[in-house]
């Protein structure tokens, strides 16, 4: 990770400058993030760590363009997010950004294969079905193609979610506590899979975790304490 050289970040796929997020509460404004600076180059891996409530997921959401900051600037895939409205940010994400969530977020009515198919169809890929089949195979679930999420274990659901995140060949994958809902063994296998796919696809991976083992496998680590960057470290 490049230090947040505020000049410009020519090669950064994601960068934040003086990023702050405040929410109104009964007792006035509550600062969730304060003055966060970061820049991530293409192909790098970054772990955002911190205790519960330290602002990790908020930061992830802001970097992915899912929300707007109270102050500061974000560059995502060469675009200044502050200039984009909600729909323009959505268009920017389409096909170029993948997500992995703690709660998997598979559509319950769709089968494993169809869940992977969804972002490909949304991005208008002609070879959607082949790619989805290919990625289902990559995560070792070819045999479960026709199963709905309800018929899959937690680990299997997360593997489908990972396949879905990588299926569109995204430039960045954001992962929010990808092992948070899994037991240690399954979690470890999921991490292996995530990093293996990330390496082979040359994707930028930004993940939120409070799992040290997971964080330690990332090239960079950004530790938040009460919304402030406490430490930026190379792993």
């Amino acid at each position, binding site marked *: 990770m490049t230090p947040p050289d505020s000049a410009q970040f020519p090669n950064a796929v994601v960068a934040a400058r003086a990023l702050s997020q405040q929410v109104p509460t009964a007792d006035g404004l509550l600062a969730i993030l304060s003055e966060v600076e970061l820049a991530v180059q293409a192909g790098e891996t970054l772990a955002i760590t911190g205790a519960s409530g330290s602002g990790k997921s908020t930061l992830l959401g802001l970097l992915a363009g*899912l929300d707007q900051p109270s102050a500061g600037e974000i560059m995502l895939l060469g675009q200044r997010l502050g200039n984009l409205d909600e729909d323009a940010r*959505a*268009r920017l994400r389409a096909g170029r950004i993948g*997500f992995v969530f703690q709660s998997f977020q598979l*559509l319950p009515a769709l089968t494993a294969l169809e869940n992977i198919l969804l972002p490909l169809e949304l991005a208008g890929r002609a070879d959607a079905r082949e790619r989805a089949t290919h990625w289902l195979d990559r995560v070792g679930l070819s045999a479960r193609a026709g199963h709905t999420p309800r018929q899959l274990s937690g680990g299997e659901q997360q593997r489908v979610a990972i396949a879905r995140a990588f299926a569109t060949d995204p430039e960045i994958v954001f992962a929010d506590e990808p092992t948070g809902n899994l037991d240690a063994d399954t979690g470890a296998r999921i991490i292996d899979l995530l990093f293996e796919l990330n390496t082979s696809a040359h994707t930028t991976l930004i993940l939120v975790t409070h799992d040290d083992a997971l964080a330690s496998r990332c090239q960079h680590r950004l530790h938040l304490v009460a919304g402030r960057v406490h430490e930026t470290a190379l792993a």
Partner: protein
Amino acid sequence: MSFARLGLWLLRRERASGEWRVLLLALIIGVGSVSTTGFLGDRIKRAMSEQGAGFLGADLLVTSPRPIDAWPIHTLKTSSALEFASMVSRGDAFQLATLRAVDAAYPLRGEVRIADRPFETGTPRPAQPPPGTVYVDQELLTLLNAEVGDAVQIGEATFRIAGVVVEEPGQLGGVFGFAPRVFLRADEIEATRVLQPGSRLTYLYQFAGEPEPLSNFSAALKPTLETTQRLIGSRDGVETLRGAFANADRYLQLTALISLLLSVAAIAIAAHRHALRHYDQAALLRCMGATTAQLRVLYAVQLLTLGLLGSLAGVAIGALMQQALAGLILPDAVTRLPSLGLAPIGVAVASGLLALAGASLPALMRLIRVPPLRVLRRDLPPLPAAAWISATVSGSALMILIAWYAGDARLVAGFVGALAALVAVLVLLARLALVAGRGVQKISYGPLRFGLAQMLRHRFDSMLQLGAFTLALFLVALLALVRSDLVDGWRQQLPENAPNYFLVNIAPHQQDAVAAYLAEHRLEASELYPMVRGRLVSKNGTPIADTLPPEARDTNTLRRELNLTWTATLPANNVLLAGTWHGERRVAEISVESGMAERLNLALGDTLGFESGDQKIAARISSIRSVKWESMQPNFFVIFAPGPLDTLPASSIASVYVPPDAAGMLPGFVKTFPGITILALDKLIANIEAVFAQIIGAIQLLLGFLLAAGMAVVVATLLASLDARQQEAVLLRTLGAQRAYLAKGLWSEFIALGVLDGLLASVCAEIAMALIAERLFELPVRLHPWLWLALPAAGALLVGMSGWLTTRHITRVPPMQSIRALG
């Protein structure tokens, strides 16, 4: 893949979901309801238009209670007919029939179809039968147990039945056709000797020709017509009937609309739950790059698809049900109605889409505005759509629907007002019922306590269910009560041994013979009242219409000829209210019935002018009396003192009580006095009952939709609370509750709801029925104990079944699976 296709794909994958099913079901019920009446109304209207001039049998028709001799000069084709009621008998069987004596030219337009055998389609023929024969309709053959070729007696003449009338101008079917039809030759009436002075006759004069001579003729004729004579053009004939029909049709359509509106409630609830369950999906799609416009396309396509599917399925059901409705309303004409039209399909589908849009747009608008950040923070609610937009969208959609079906502003206001008042009362009652439920819950135990607690916890849902289902049960029950009570009420009001037959058309020379015949058979008869037909034309020298405000002029008392009588003794059941009874004095005085005096603003001392034929009679009101109409004695609005009417041609009327064991004398009476018409009250009441049954049967068919829509609301609200229920069930099962305990709890809850529905509906039905009986029909108010058992039982069964079927799986799914499913 376009978002439209994606929407269809997701819809296909989710087709088994409860919300879509309820939404679709509710839409099918609602559209089925409005298209049933839509299809039938359209068929009847088209039948009227297609018949055109054939509907009247002419281009112009003049009806008159007496012959018209002088006509403006014209070159038109003409035909005339005379219509009157008379007895037709064969052996010991006799029947009152409507006879139409026609000339060779009848009808000038349209056709009369005559068949050689019953139930055949027949061929078009002149309505005038060959000499010595009559054509009769199917019903008369059955009533007289006769066949084509048999002889029947009409008055003093015998005729052979030469054919069966299958179709004639102006007849769509026999809703109000009390007496069966007979065609005979005009030149053979004389031989029957049934026409007496004072008989109620209708002369029909038909004209046909080119438009210009027609309009000249009608312009010249109009000023010469009296109020009892009517000129009907082929267009206004159809228009008048269509207008009358349009009103009836409108009320049926509004009844159907209630089902659609109840369906809207079910749809709104289902759509709300669908939105709630799809916030995550929408957020995920936004996260994957879907814009609001794309989501809008996605959900709009889903909604439109469901709307079209539901509406078309509803139309299909409507197409089936309208045939059943036609069978109830027009049993004789079903086969003659034109086939299904396309226009009602458009109207029904448009209504369905509008209802769906109004009910589900607010929920879908929120779905589209879900923030993508929800993928990370599940608690994040979607942005509320501006409340005024939702309210405007739903409100205007519903108002457009109501206005569309109600037609005019007053009806819209009345309908909306009545519906709002009913809903308010139901909500209030439902609240009270829930308060009572709380009391019961406190003293109950086990699954019942749990079930009642559930009902009270989901209080808003329970109120919605109670309101919707009670409305349906209430209306169904009310109709059943109206049907049974009114007819029973009329029957019960008849005094014991009240006259049950009227003898009409008794010629002066027959009076003594009739009296002797009745005495010989020991039958109690009323006095014989002479009857003269006359028209009220003036009050104190001023035309009577001019003395009345415009809104009071439209009364049968002025349009029709009155039966005028004279007698020296005040009839029994009449009470003098004002003035002095004229008694034996031969003076130009009359006694007027109090209701008529009130309607026409008549007072003691006023002089009324009457016209009977070409005679003019004036008489002063010397008394006003009340009449007990239900006494079944011959009753009269106007009774003259002896004298003024003496010279006018009159026939007499009497009423007689024939005990059931003496009814065997009637065929003998008919044979002895063939010209006298016998009106059997039993048959009249049975006829009224039959017409009532037809109309109410038709409405009840529509209320079937309402009941189904009510059940859809129950299912929709239950589905909406299913997640919460599942969580509770999981908790209880984890704590050791057995499946049977949960099942009993659910059954207790739904049965309690159903019983409450039934009780509330009983309260509403009893109150409404009491008001109807007392205010509208002046019948004694009575309670219906069976209702209080039947409605709660029906409610318990219907709500219990639909509730159990909707929720039973929460008792079956293992807790672990539930926990996982709920995330």
